[in-house]
């Protein structure tokens, strides 16, 4: 048993729902107890979906368990088919129905439906949402593209020279983080490269579209968590190669352009020369000097965490002090990325552990999911959301991709806006003793609610409070003289805790029991980079 306060991923059948809800002409019949219909509201509320997700639930109750739940499933299946007339039906079970072992697959086979039925195995007690989405997409692709696959061992013929290259875009789903806009952005990028889009799937695809997947020359995999399994199968069955770079950030988008150009056999240089991202200049402009070395903690699904860590480090000049994922299936990729930044990778789906690690790293910015937004709020650290699980705010009305060159612009704003603006930080340092520029003066663009309510009314009092809070942590800590405490108050509040830690470490290492003003500045000189 695992103790969970909040979960990063839902059960695998919710992953199946994300595929069904993304597609057209598909209906999912779920054997599930009363109450599991809650999942509908994820789609209708968070994504503001204007139609019910195409899912029928059997919603069995205790009184049904004594009777014939199998018949209940069969009836629901037939009724859903009659009512919705889909081009394909997916059948599966949620966690409780898995236990009663009614075999939806067998029941569907004997129901005598003319519509194709794709059975799903969704092991609820071993797997989670993203796995369920990947498995469902793979099953759908196999079911509808499979019959069109050439015999095994067939060598893929070269593309006819009179036809432009064609690619599928794989991975976008319902309830995905910015999937809608990423697809639009990547479509545009492919068009500029002269690559035609054959099918986008699962988002917006019908079973008939899935059947045409093999007609593309190669696959663009935007979200390996969702499309990885299907893309591997397509590579084996149709000899289609797939992109490995996820175009998050300017650098990754450039790499992606080169990779696509090579797969498509086209020249990437026109697109690379006309690159239209503002990020490189914005990061080089003087205001951004103040972003340099900001300590950032990154956590999310693997794709977005790895992509955003690269943007943070290489394209904004931040220091990555933590990198992690809840997607165990992609732990290896995150470990490799973490090694590049010299940090310990955090692979966990335990929200409390993530909170402890963030608190320990004391970052100046958190890039995470909705969960980390709450952690950051509790610890008063600026935060931006970069990954699912998502919230209604992560479906903005405006065009807001995170992939491609426009996506890089969006990420620049996303990472920088929660922070103090450069010039503002500069002024705050200059006038830190000024009565209107005291510690509680929050970034002006965040409004009055962002004031640090818990902070004391003056820097000196805040320093006292800071030292008092430290005292409860360690009783043998060195003693600060009143003058040193007052001087600590003059250190800008956003580095005050660090100054305190460094000074105490410096003192402890030298056996200094009393910290004076001189100790404070000795330590500052010692730790100066």
């Amino acid at each position, binding site marked *: *048993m*695992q*103790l*969970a*306060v*909040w*979960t990063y*991923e*839902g*059960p695998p*059948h*919710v992953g199946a729902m994300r595929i069904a809800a993304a597609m057209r002409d598909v209906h999912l019949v779920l054997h599930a*107890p*009363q*109450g*599991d*219909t*809650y*999942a*509908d*509201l*994820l789609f*209708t*509320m968070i994504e*503001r*979906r*204007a*139609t*019910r997700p195409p899912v029928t*639930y*059997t*919603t*069995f*109750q*205790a009184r*049904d*368990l004594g009777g014939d739940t199998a018949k209940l499933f069969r*009836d*629901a299946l037939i*009724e859903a088919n009659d*009512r919705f007339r889909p081009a394909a039906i997916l059948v599966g079970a*949620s*966690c*409780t129905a898995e*236990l*009663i072992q009614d075999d939806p697959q067998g029941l569907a086979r004997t129901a005598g439906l003319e519509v194709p039925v794709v059975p799903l195995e969704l*092991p*609820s*007690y*071993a797997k*989670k949402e993203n796995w369920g989405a990947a498995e469902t997409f793979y099953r759908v692709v196999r079911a509808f593209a499979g019959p069109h696959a050439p015999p095994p061992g067939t060598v893929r013929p070269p593309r006819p020279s009179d036809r432009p290259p064609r690619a599928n875009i794989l991975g976008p789903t319902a309830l995905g983080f910015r999937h809608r806009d990423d697809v639009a952005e990547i479509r545009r990028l492919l068009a500029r490269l002269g690559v035609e889009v054959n099918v986008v799937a699962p988002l917006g695809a019908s079973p008939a579209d899935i059947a045409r997947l093999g007609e593309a020359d190669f696959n663009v995999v935007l979200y390996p968590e969702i499309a990885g399994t299907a893309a591997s199968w397509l590579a084996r069955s149709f000899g289609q190669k797939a992109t490995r770079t996820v175009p998050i950030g300017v650098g990754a988008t450039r790499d992606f352009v080169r990779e696509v150009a090579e797969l498509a056999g086209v020249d990437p240089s026109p697109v690379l020369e006309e690159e239209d991202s503002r990020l490189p200049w914005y990061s080089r402009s003087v205001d951004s000097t103040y972003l340099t070395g900001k300590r950032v903690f990154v956590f999310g699904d693997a794709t977005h965490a790895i992509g955003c860590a690269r943007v943070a480090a290489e394209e904004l000049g931040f220091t990555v002090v933590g990198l992690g994922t809840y997607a165990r299936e992609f732990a290896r990729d995150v470990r490799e990325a973490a090694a590049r930044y010299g940090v310990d990778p955090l692979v966990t789906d335990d929200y*409390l552990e993530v*909170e402890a690690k963030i608190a320990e790293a004391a970052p100046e910015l958190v890039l995470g999911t*909705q*969960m980390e937004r*709450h*952690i950051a*709020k*509790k610890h008063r650290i600026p935060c931006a959301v970069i990954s699912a699980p998502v*919230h209604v705010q992560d479906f903005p009305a405006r065009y807001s991709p995170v992939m491609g060159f426009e996506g890089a612009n969006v990420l620049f704003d996303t990472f920088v806006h929660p922070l103090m603006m450069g010039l503002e930080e500069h002024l705050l340092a200059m006038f830190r003793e000024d009565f209107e520029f005291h510690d509680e003066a929050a970034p002006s663009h965040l409004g009055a609610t962002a004031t640090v309510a818990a902070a004391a009314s003056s820097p000196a009092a805040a320093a006292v409070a800071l030292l008092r809070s430290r005292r409860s942590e360690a009783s043998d800590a060195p003693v600060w003289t009143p003058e040193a405490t007052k001087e600590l108050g003059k250190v800008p509040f956003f580095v005050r805790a660090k100054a305190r830690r460094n000074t105490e470490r410096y003192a402890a290492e030298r056996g200094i029991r009393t910290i004076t003003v001189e100790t404070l500045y000795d330590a500052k000189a010692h730790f100066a980079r």
Partner: protein
Amino acid sequence: MSLAVTPRATPGCTDLPVLRERGQREVFCGLTGIVWLHRKIQDAFFLIVGSRTCAHLMQSAAGVMIFAEPRFATAIIEERDLAGLADANAELDRVVERLLARRPDIRLLFLVGSCPSEVIKLDLKRAAARLDTRFAPRVRVLNYSGSGIETTFTQGEDACLAALVPELPEAEDRSPRLLVVGVLPDVVEDQMLRLFAAMGLDRVAVLPPRRSTALPAVGPGTLVLLAQPWLGETARALEARGCRHLPAPFPLGAEGTTGWLRAAADAFDVSPSRFREATALGIARAEKAVAAHRPVLEGKSVFLFPDSQIEVPLARFLARECGMRPLEIGTPYLHRGLLEKELPLLPDGAVLSEGQHVDRQLDRLRAARPDITVCGLGLANPLEAEGFTTKWSIELVFTPIQGYDQAADLAGLFARPLDRARRLRV
């Protein structure tokens, strides 16, 4: 999936037809009650023994994660727990130990059963007894089921309170005392207690209490006034302890609140003049404030999907105090015993439906084309997109709507969507 219209024959009730349906039920399970129960009992922790689905439901149903570390959590059953129940019990003990070590402020722990724990027959009653002995006297450990196979939405509160009943101390004497049963928002509860005090009732307690260490005493002298219409099991358990249930309408609107208070006043022989004195100001305020919304609501038709069981008292308020026309009043269960003072007040022309077949109900809705539809969050946006104005029902259990001073707030919940529909030009 049967469909039957049968006339009601219960004496004293109106002759509204009841449509009984079975099919897909678009409702929450009883676990959802934890969302308000844990806010009410402030030293209680609710540990769901269930699946990842249960944890995901709590997260989604709570809507936003307001509390960084809430007083509820899920012990997620994993594959190896299914292999052997002995090990599952050991695992549960380990989880509880970790949890209680982390939260020394907890005095009452509920092990809450779920669909999977019920199906694998994990005996949480025994587990609770075992853990109760182990952690006594610091923490009491109780259990109830909030599973979807056994409870619908608000029935989870009923199951939780029913589990508390055997724990209530025995009253020392048989003289009459009032027990108000059901979670009311604190602000409403305080108003009601002030009203009872104004009537001269001094032996009034509430279940559940805000602290689990202050459980009210009950016994043959206890008169039970239900604050919510979904507490059938709790009422039965209290009756088994010798308490007497006071039939009453529910405190929605001025009329409902007065009727509810009067049930207690009559049982305690409060004089008519004293009752009038205590309630006159509240009635006047409620009527005046509701009247402000009436122009928007008057004559508007309303269609209620089944959700919490509050639908019958709600329809009565909307019809009699706001002038609205209920077309269909859906409820997950029609508990005639608890609604005996409500059903006769429903207007003619409405259909009562019990249970649900959501697709057929949507067909009826589209045919009826009501001015406003009360439904769950899974249906609200799709219906808005079809041009229906909606009021999402979850607010009716999460927000203070009972009592005189909330009557206009309740009317306002229905006026606002209509007002928005009138204003928007896009």
